[in-house]
């Protein structure tokens, strides 16, 4: 326990000092690592801890992004005030999808697929409905002052992302120590046994999806405020779903630090492919190359190391998932 505390303290110190010592583009990379770890953790809570694998988590991300952006751009709301509303919207969508899916008794692969379908429905709607400006997307007017949830200096965006990541780690940590978290793990391991021991499986699943949706939506707003532009492809595209799933699985689904480790790994892959693209002229397109590696990683992890990279550290007291049980 002490070793963990020491490592955390060290990590915290390093991550706080980091942006003060490196050039801006590295600060942004660091920001993306923590941001991806944050939304990855939102997936991890439902998919890793509770075992409810979702393929369409981006639906919450996009809900958050569009809610805060529409409130801001169309109704003149201050983005900081719109943020909690966006989170509530994400939670509501999570609640709705959970109630519908679990009332119908959907589990496992069927649940994964229906979340994909929901994300697709939202994407198509966002593309066709006037109040989202359809395929044109929505632009947030650039006015980089903190009160507008916009920061001129990337260091502040970095610290905000770091803060979100830390909050998500604390939430996950709290799950490992609480009754709610223990119940989620029980549900993941064996739903019927959980039921027999007095757990209201339906209610707990709905709760976790609601929490997960709210968290992910918070990330959506953050993203919109950073890039000042969203469209249906960005907000509801399948790539983000894959990213959230991947960082959690690569790092270790159902562990506290899994998404963070996964996020570091994926960022490393990204940088390597970017370097590769710069030296090999044929590989002009970086993003597909990164995604190819992502796909290979997913296959390798599921096939060879289902408990993710965290399992390499072999900590039997930390709840590991049991993807191969």
């Amino acid at each position, binding site marked *: 326990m002490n070793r963990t505390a020491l490592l955390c303290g060290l990590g915290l110190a390093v991550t706080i000092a980091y942006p003060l010592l490196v050039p801006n583009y590295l600060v942004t990379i660091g920001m993306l690592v923590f941001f991806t770890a944050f939304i990855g953790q939102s997936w991890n809570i439902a998919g890793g801890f509770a075992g409810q*694998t979702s*393929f369409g988590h981006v639906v919450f991300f996009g809900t958050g992004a569009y809610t805060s952006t529409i409130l801001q751009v169309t109704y003149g709301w201050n983005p900081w005030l719109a943020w909690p509303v966006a989170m509530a919207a994400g939670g509501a969508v999570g609640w709705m999808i959970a109630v*519908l*899916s679990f*009332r*119908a*008794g*959907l589990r*496992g*692969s*069927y649940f*994964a*697929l*229906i979340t*994909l*379908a*929901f994300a*697709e*429905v939202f994407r*198509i*709607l966002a*593309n*066709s409905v006037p109040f989202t400006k359809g*395929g044109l997307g929505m632009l947030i007017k650039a006015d980089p002052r903190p009160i507008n949830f916009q920061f001129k200096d990337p260091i502040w965006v970095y610290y905000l992302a770091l803060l979100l990541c830390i909050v998500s780690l604390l939430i996950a940590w709290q799950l490992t120590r609480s009754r709610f978290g223990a119940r989620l793990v029980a549900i993941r391991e064996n739903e019927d046994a959980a039921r027999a021991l007095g757990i209201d499986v339906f209610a707990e699943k709905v709760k976790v999806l609601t929490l997960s949706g709210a968290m992910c939506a918070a990330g959506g707003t953050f993203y919109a405020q950073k890039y000042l532009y969203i469209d249906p492809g960005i907000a509801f595209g*399948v790539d983000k779903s*894959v990213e959230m799933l991947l960082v959690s*699985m690569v790092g270790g689904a159902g562990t506290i630090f899994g998404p963070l480790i996964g996020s570091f790994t994926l960022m490393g892959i990204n940088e390597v492919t970017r370097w590769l693209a710069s030296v090999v002229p044929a*590989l002009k*397109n970086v993003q*597909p*190359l990164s*995604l*190819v590696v*992502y*796909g*290979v*990683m*997913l*296959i390798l992890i*599921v*096939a060879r190391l*289902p408990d993710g990279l965290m399992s390499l550290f072999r900590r039997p007291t930390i709840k590991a998932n049991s*993807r*191969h*049980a």
Partner: protein
Amino acid sequence: MLDPAFLLAGVLNGLLAGGIYVLVAVGLTLIYGVLHIINFAHGSLLMLAMYAVFYLWRLIGIDPYAALPAVVAGAFGFGFVLYRLLIGRYNHGRDENILLITLGLSIVIDNIALLFFGGDTQTIDVPYAGTFVEIGAAFLPLPKIISFGASLVLCAALGLYMAKSDMGKAIRAVARERQGARLVGIDVENVFAVSYGIGIACLGAAACLLMPTYYVTPSSGHAFVLVAFTIVVLGGMGSFAGAAVGGFIIGITESLGGLFLGEQLGQIGISLIFILILLLKPTGLFGSKA
């Protein structure tokens, strides 16, 4: 828009498209029925097959219909090997695991296609593409009708194969009772590989039938996968009759959806059907167990 002429054209076009969807869905439902795998890579593999048809036409000048035997054989081989090397090894454990592996596979295929083929839309220009057949008040492209007919013939052929041939019987045995099949001496792993191969072969056939009137881009896989899943879920996982009926229903839905709601919004019909079926009748029209 409710002009009966438009409606008729919409329904007929949808029927024709549906005929090819049936072929795609049959492959998927076969793979599920025998291996109990939800083959998430189905759409991406179709996209790959379509590119194969395209490049055969572009580089060697083979008409897509003429290329059918070769493409089907090649697709079967590809699927067989893919099963042996990758999917077969991890066919055990939680069902979500194989779903994740096929998800990874689809990501790899989609993006390799993007890298090598570029993002451009590719089409084939066949000399008879401009020929139209008049049915009632509707003008239907000849290639679509040929494809429809070919699809029906191929489905019937597959059905015959499954019913009469030794391998077909073995496949049906394994689908119904895996352990029992093992006990009577059927090489179950081989049946799995063959079944997966046949499923992909169906995609090869569908690719040949689609390319004369359709287009392909690397993102086609993503578009097809939800359609394929919706058909199979609608019809019932593992049911051929379901795949057939589902294919036509979805074809018509897509066509009419596009007619009434426009190209973009029309696509929503498929996702909504998928959601509604899963929520209300997950076993589908003809399925037995969810």
